[in-house]
């Protein structure tokens, strides 16, 4: 399941539902709802990856997860252009392989751990998501989108289901973020600028120095024309 579906939250939910005896159509519907957020990721990455060959984009789609999206979009913003090799690294080396190896390790060794919840491992997912979200916030628009998205998601999740809540937050948050006037957005790191490279640089790394030639942009790429905010 980790290889074929490759969607952690849906897998956790499915295992629970199978164990509780829920009928398959219900599991599949919930999977579709839970993973609908990938449509937003896919659309957000499309402008960056348009020059990649269709077949490779089809494979990229299967490897698109929360983590792969956050890592690759941060990387693209940092360097101001798309980087196909960077996407593969984010999707395969840092997500697909560890996820499947860890799944196998869990199958083989999981019974040796008497109570995994005691270790606090369950908090890794929300902590990682919030950490990755912080990495994408470069101005008030992103901040407003994140805060509103979280609030809407919780409210809708409590009223309906977590899956619907997450998608609702992902749709409504950016809409409200766009309402922040450009003059008040306080964008600290517009795409493709040195400030962006500095913001998204990993700790301890050296970014392009001031005055050095900027990375070349494919014509019309998202990074070629920083948004006028």
């Amino acid at each position: 399941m980790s290889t074929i579906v490759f969607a952690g939250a849906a897998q956790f939910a499915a295992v629970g539902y199978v164990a509780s005896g829920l009928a398959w159509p219900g599991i599949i519907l919930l999977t579709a709802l839970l993973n609908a957020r990938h449509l937003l990721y896919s659309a957000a990455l499309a402008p960056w990856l348009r020059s990649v060959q269709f077949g490779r984009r089809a494979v990229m789609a299967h490897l698109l997860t929360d983590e792969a999206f956050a890592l690759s979009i941060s990387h693209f913003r940092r360097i101001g252009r798309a980087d196909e090799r960077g996407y593969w690294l984010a999707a395969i080396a840092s997500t697909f392989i560890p996820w499947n190896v860890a799944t196998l390790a869990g199958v083989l060794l999981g019974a040796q751990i008497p109570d995994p919840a005691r270790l606090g491992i369950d908090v890794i997912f929300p902590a990682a998501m919030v950490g990755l979200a912080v990495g994408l916030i470069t101005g008030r628009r992103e901040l407003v989108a994140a805060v509103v998205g979280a609030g809407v998601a919780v409210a809708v999740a409590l009223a309906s289901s977590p899956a619907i809540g997450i998608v609702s937050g992902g749709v409504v948050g950016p809409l409200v973020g766009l309402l922040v006037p450009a003059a008040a957005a306080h964008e600290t790191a517009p795409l493709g600028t040195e400030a962006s490279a500095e913001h998204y640089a990993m700790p301890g790394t050296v970014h392009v120095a001031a005055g050095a030639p900027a990375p070349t942009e494919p014509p019309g790429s998202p990074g070629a024309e920083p948004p006028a905010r």
Partner: protein
Amino acid sequence: MSTNLVLLAVLMFAVTYPSRALGLLTPGLDRLPRIAFDYLQLVGPAVLAALAAVSVTVVVGDNDVPSFHVGIEWVAVFVCLAIVARRRNLFLGLVSAVAIVAIARAAGLAAIPA
């Protein structure tokens, strides 16, 4: 994993892949108007924050009814957020979050999820 569950995994893939591929494979999405591109730039922070918030604050009980949850996980996630915001070090944030939850549960200060 039984053969039946392989079939379930294939069906789950069949409903997951389209949402992943639609944006990447649909022609013309790269020629979006400025406002649409700005919207999509805000999707990442919104969805990731939504995922984190729902994971920490909403618990689905045995009766499938979601309920509001307050616990040590809030503190752990907030500490991770603060560390990433100040130090830009996600690994340190994750280690700190796990340590807070593990210590609190070991000390009996926080409930262990079922």
